[in-house]
């Protein structure tokens, strides 16, 4: 069986002052993903390796890691693409390392909760009145942003988040936009307070790497930057229009 050199960044809070690289010569087949490789290491070489994973098919968003320095899903990246030189796997950048490849994502979870990540109906309807109707165009305005799986590759790609973790960041702002851009939603004004804040969209400097690394084609940079326009309108319109006109 072919083997591939793989280095994994290890950090055991009980023993280690700082992370260190552990090397393996991993037997692999062409159909093996990096996630499968890591699980093979855990099964056959070192059972103490900690990592997050669930679905193995790019939908749960748990197995995000840095592979050769780039944020990627372990399950959507193949070992064969790194042969014969090998690869380095480390935990997602810009998040504190909890243990080995596991990072602390509490900060993101708090941000996700803060953006009201659900539809607040603009006009309540009874069951008798039937469903909320949308045109295909109204759907297209938010559909791509609803594909976010919270894998946080975009945060690992965002230097502004790395430099200041108060920044709400790409995924939370993309999801915020997903609801603000939905014709059925009525909570826009509440969410605009997050958009308008210094740590909202204005902390983004349009690096654009978040959209490059997104495994689901969400394009968070586009969501954030559309909201710079929305935020500017929100700011200036209140001088020229009576109360409530900025919606």
């Amino acid at each position, binding site marked *: 069986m072919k083997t591939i050199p793989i280095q994994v960044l290890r950090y055991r809070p009980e023993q280690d002052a700082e992370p260190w690289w552990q090397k393996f010569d991993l037997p692999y087949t062409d159909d093996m993903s990096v996630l499968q490789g890591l699980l093979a290491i855990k099964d056959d070489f070192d059972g103490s390796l900690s990592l997050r994973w669930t679905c193995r098919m790019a939908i749960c968003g748990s197995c995000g890691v840095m592979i050769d*320095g780039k944020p990627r899903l372990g399950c959507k990246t193949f070992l064969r693409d790194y042969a014969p030189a090998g690869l380095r796997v480390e935990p997602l950048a810009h998040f504190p390392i909890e243990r080995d490849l596991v990072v602390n994502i509490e900060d993101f979870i708090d941000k996700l909760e803060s953006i009201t990540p659900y539809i607040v109906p603009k006009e309540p309807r009874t069951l008798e009145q039937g469903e909320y109707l949308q045109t295909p165009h109204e759907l297209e305005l938010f559909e791509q942003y609803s594909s976010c799986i919270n894998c946080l590759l975009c945060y690992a790609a965002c230097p502004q988040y790395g430099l200041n973790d108060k920044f709400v960041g790409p995924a939370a702002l993309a999801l915020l936009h997903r609801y603000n851009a939905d014709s059925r939603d009525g909570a826009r004004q509440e969410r605009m307070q997050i958009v308008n804040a210094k740590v909202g969209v204005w902390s983004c400097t349009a*690096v654009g790497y978040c959209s490059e690394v997104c495994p689901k084609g969400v394009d968070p940079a586009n969501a954030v*930057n559309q909201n710079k326009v929305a935020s500017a309108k929100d700011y200036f319109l209140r001088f020229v229009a009576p109360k409530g006109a900025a919606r």
Partner: protein
Amino acid sequence: MRKPYVRPMTRWWRRDPYFVRYMWREATALAVAAYAVVLTVGVWRLAQGQAAFDGWLQALRSWPSIVFHLVLLAAMVIHAVSWFEIMPKTMPMLFVDGERVPAATITRAGLVTAVAAALALFALAWMLKP
């Protein structure tokens, strides 16, 4: 036991070629500002009369000035190309006949407009040449 390890951000811009490109895009904005200063000085010298303006034109024809302008031109090309690359991400979704305009089309349209504007300006300057 919890003892989260925070990795440093030292020299983060060298970590990924994408960040290096981003830093070039941002740094070349200084070249755009520098050229705006050169033109402003020209207007200022013009206000001081014919002799002052001729002196400014003379200074532009010197070797250091030509080298400086070539550097500025290169920087502006980098700036324009990298900005039009990111432009589709910075603007609201565009729809033509109900179809979303692809990002590559927006980038191309921006680049074509920039080249056309530069050529038109060059042609105008050529025609007005004394």
